[in-house]
């Protein structure tokens, strides 16, 4: 459990740098991960620095289950917010290494893990899209997950959960909306029934 919506954390980024790279150097908002050894960091800031870096591989029986890691970030982010010609620079080179590293040869707009991570979640307990399993899974099927536990949550007792979920037109599995609709609807019917009875009993 990271607290991604902590104000200090949320602010520690530079959208302009993400788009323009080293050409943009007013990155004071990125403190304390602004520069290292006198050189600017791209991408700067605490969010990027604490990039989530657990990795997962899935297997169905002995066959590897393909997980598509493409198109997991918002298109607008990829096309307009992260520079196509901006490459990681001086990233995770400091004495304190936060989270994952980035491939310096890939432009930021292609680093979808980063893009997903940079969208700070709204609430303390949150999910992030890792990838899509595009094959249909059968019921009762056993899936083997091989995970590399890189990301440190021990210091603050955070929990990590892997969720495999089917998403429908209403998104992932979440009964809340449906229950709420049923509850509100039935209470409305109940109330209107009560008022109708009262009205019939003593009309104007």
């Amino acid at each position, binding site marked *: 459990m990271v607290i991604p919506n*902590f104000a200090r954390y949320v602010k520690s980024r530079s959208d302009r740098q993400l788009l323009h790279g080293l050409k943009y150097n007013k990155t004071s908002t990125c403190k304390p991960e602004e520069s290292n050894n006198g050189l600017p960091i791209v991408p700067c800031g605490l969010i990027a620095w604490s990039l989530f870096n657990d990795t997962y591989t899935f297997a169905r029986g002995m066959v590897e289950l393909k997980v598509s890691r493409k198109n997991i970030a918002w298109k607008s982010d990829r096309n307009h917010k992260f520079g196509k010609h901006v490459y990681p620079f001086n990233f995770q080179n400091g004495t304190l290494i936060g989270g994952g590293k980035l491939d310096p040869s890939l432009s930021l707009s292609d680093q979808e893990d980063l893009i997903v991570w940079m969208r700070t979640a709204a609430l303390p307990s949150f999910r992030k899209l890792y990838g899509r399993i595009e094959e249909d899974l059968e019921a009762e099927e056993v899936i083997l997950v091989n995970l590399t536990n890189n990301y440190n949550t021990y210091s603050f007792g955070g929990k990590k959960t892997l969720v495999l979920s089917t998403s429908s037109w209403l998104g992932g599995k979440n009964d809340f909306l449906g229950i709420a609709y049923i509850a*509100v609807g039935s209470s409305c019917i109940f109330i209107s029934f009560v008022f109708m009875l009262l009205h019939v009993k003593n009309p104007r």
Partner: protein
Amino acid sequence: MRESSARTKGKVRWSKLYSFSCLRQGTVEPAPVQQLGGPGFTRVVFCNESHLHKKKPYKYPKNSISTTKYNFVTFFPKALFEQFRRVANLYFLLAAILSVTSLAPFSPASVIAPLVFVVGISMLKEAVEDWRRFLQDLNVNSRTVKVHIGNGLFKDKAWKALSVGDVVKVNKNDYFPSDLLLISSSFEDGLCYVETMNLDGETNLKVKRCLEQTLSLDEDTEFLNFKATIRCEDPNSNLYSFVGNLEFENQTHPLGTAQVLLRDSKLRNTDYVYGVVIFSGPDTKVVRNSTRSPSKRSRIERRMDYVIYILFSMLILVSLVTSIGSVLYTTSQMTKWWYLHSEEDDPFFNPLKPVLSGILQFIRGLILFGYLIPISLYVSIEVVKVLQSMLINKDIEMYDEVTCKSVEAQTSNLNEELGQVEMILSDKTGTLTCNQMEFRKCSIAGISYGGEVNEVDLAASKRINTDLERYHFSFDGSDSSSQSFEMFEFSVPDVRTQKAVLDGVEDVENLSIGNSRISDLGKESVIRGFNFKDDRLMKKKWMNRSNVSDMTMFFRVMALCHTGIPIEDDETDKLKYEAESPEEVAFLIASQEFGFKFCRRTQSILVLKELDPSLGVEVEREYKLLNLLEFSSSRKRMSVIVSNEDGQIFLLCKGADSIIFDRLADDGKAYQQETSAHLLNYAEDGLRTLAFAYRRIEHAEYEDWSSIFTRAKTTIGPIREELLESVSEMIEKDLILLGVAAVEDKLQKGVPECIDKLAQAGLKIWLLTGDKKETAINIGFACSLLRHDMTQFHLSLSKEAESNNQEKAMKEDILQQIGKSYQVTCEESNKDAPFALVVDGKALEIAMRSDVKDQFLHLAVNCASVICCRVSPKQKALITRSVKEYTGRTILAIGDGANDVGMIQEADIGVGISGMEGMQAVMASDFSLPQFRFLERLLIVHGHWCYKRISKMILYFVYKNIVFGLTLFYYELYTNFSGEVMYDDWYMVLFNVLLTSFPVISLGVLEQDVPSDVCLQFPALYQQGQRNIYFSWIRILGWILNGVLASLAIFTLNVYTLSPAAFREGGEVADIAHLGAFSYTCVIWTVNCQIALIISHFTWIQYLFIWGSILLWYIFMYIYGALPPVYSNRAFHLFTEALGPTPMYWLITLLVLIVSLLPYFIHIVIQRLFYPMDDHVIQEMKYYRKDVTDNPMWLREQNNSKKKTHIGFSSRVDAKIRYFRGQLHQKKILIYRSVTNSPLYRSVTNSPLF
């Protein structure tokens, strides 16, 4: 004075004859002169040498006046200072300053812009109001007056150019430009008449008189070499004193108030006067007397302050929770969060300095949750109030075609206060009445003339008649009933009317038509001051009646016993008259109409052109005026002793009926009984009555008496008055009663109906007048403020207490009277009986002392109506303040003259009548009306609406800001109190500025619970404002609760649906921007739909604003998202990419909307179904068109909604009906007995068919 009268004794001044100045002058004795030159008496004025006043030490201010609050230089600092004296503004300023620092969680513009707007608008309003004052001043300052410019030439100069020492010439009917010393007038004895209505509200003319020595300066050329020096008191505010002397031709003459003409009074009946400016501009007494109008705040606004305090404490609480939570997290947890990379560089989250971080977080919280305190509320209220007053100003129903003026809101602060008025303090002259007396009725020799049926009787009998009609059908003994009801001889001729009155409800409406017809007739009548219609007397017909001699005598008394003078009227051959009191003018006009034209007056001769009944032609007769026994308030009568051409001596007397009746001869009481009955009727109608009587005096008796009288007149010293009185008493006896005449102090159009409606709406009306007690009581009757079945308490100083002039005795006297009256009101039998209190000015002065005040007010509040007469302007203000403080009710004061200014300023709402000439009352007022009758619509319609509008608006504002502000707080809880905001900066700014402001403004300007005509039909609705049920604490708390519930619904539903699973088919999860936009959409929908539930009057404007606001949010999101990410930040492509195509987004909006509005919806359903309030019932009836389909029900409801009141026309009708019914009941019993005893009845009842 003795000296001066001795000097004038030789020459007879004819003007003295008809004014009592010869007797009154004693009261204006100049004070001792030795003070002059000492402190407070240093002013020196060099007459006709104004150039000497250009240099010190005699440099005095110019005659220009300024009533503005600011000038160009002081406007900014002063107005700004005023603005930041409001606590809320100060808070916003603090927030703005903090927002510039790094502490602010969002951009400074979002805090500063609204503040600038609020302060700017308020300052603009101040500037506009001040500008209006400036224009008014300009107008006054540029009036012109003729000023001596040397060489005996007079030239027009603007008032402002006038300086001390100038000699000016003021013409008839012009105002004096400054305080002047009277030098001479067009009258040869240096008299002039002055109307001081603007100073003290008294309408009678006052006489001023110049010094003997300056009399000769009555030509322009005389001023060529005129030089004199005035030494006098320094400028002060005392209107009734002046100390000074005039050095003229090497002699010193004392000056007093009689020689001083005050600014803002008016020259009347005198062609011109010359005067020297003594005090100019700001030094004049009237300007010194004026007070700056205090800024008033409405009751709702004052309570709103407390609401703001509640919200403020909520804000503090929330911020405190945030800062404490933040500190706890920082110290205990933050070091563990490696990803925060905590070092000691961040002051907000410094685990080593928790106190500092806590304080900083607290301040940040104050700014962040500042949305709880709606700054835009102040902006919107200002805007709404300006628009409201525009609507009030433009109301065509309140436009007076006679004066071409309409109602004007002078300040827009108090619109909603109009809906909460509980008491009206009203001036009389010029406000309720037109200051015009009309001859209405008379009773001569025991026969009443000019008497139409009294309107109250008419209304009552109409209603009774319809009841009778039913009775006729139900009662089988109809043959006998017809004769027994002859007392109700007024039949309703027209069947339709009869139908209409079947329910006895429309009476008032019918009557008001009738009333207006009567007043129209008054307008049509060609002769001003004469509204008398009786064919028996008019057109010389009276000569054919039986008791001609009495009639002749009656008219003679009317034509001779007065102090008036005739004035030629160029247009007609009829004469006009001027007299000290308007009643005398009315009598003179009437006697002229009856054929007794008073033509001339010389020092001892009165000339009448009278109709001789025996000859049938007009003859001119001279009457020698032997003595004039003047009127005084203690004598209550005046007499003249005249001798006719035959040498017969008559004493002609007129006076109050009780006084005259006491002095009747045994053989003079022939008509006393009938006359008394008529008097009672007249008085009930509010007519002012005077009894006329005469007496023949034998020559011998007269000679004896005359010598005594002359001796008394020449007596010197304080006993003179007493002596004169007792001598007069000697001759005014053994009178023969002729009859009574009744004049009407003409009420303004629509006044009784207006008072009636206001009374039904639960308003109390007090009359405060400078007039005499009798006149005040008459008007009380005319306006139905008094009735004859009311118990009247008269509070006045008893004679001995007054003469002793010992404060203690006076106080005890008053206390005793109050105690006695109070006991009467407390008696069980009088529980429902109406009481009226009539207080005299002098008694009031004692009663207003701090130790008597409470008891007095306690009594006064228990009375249905209160009339204060002979009160000074200062007392009016004092009463207003005391009543306001004692009762805590909202007081409205209405008046027309400068003497009402104090009262108008002191009251919660001051209303000025703008139809008149003077502008002081209007300038001091908060609202100005051309006519009193518009008060009804102003209060019952506009006041009611504005009250509801503003209270609904404030409550809604509180609600919507709580909804919005609390969602921020809830999110804060989820972010470990770190101060993160889920909304974009622009969302925050636009929330109050654009996305929710227009509907609430349309609510504030256009909302009506019921249409205006229904408001007027159901005055009871007005009481909602008086009881303040729409802005009660329970409602305020209810709305706060509603806001809390709605914000909870919005936040939790959004959080639980969006987290933690993905919200789209593609598996994307929601981030801060998504949650923010989701919640914000819900907030916008909720608050805008909530206002749709509140509004009960929809026009296209409301629809446009409400749905437009919601639409605007989507449009904004679209446009904002389309901007490059540098500007749109997290909102980039938010709507087009993430929200719009997501079904979840729309589903949540719908769900949240329903859930958040459900509590309110259930609340209103329950309230309307089971505990409906007046307006709900009326709305429903109106909705089902009951006023058209079920008229009786509609009218019945109207009747039921009226407040039980003791004042007003309808209640008088009700009382009359009770009286008639009582009598009817007795008759019925009689009839029943007679019928049951009749053999026919017996035979019928005994027959088996029955």
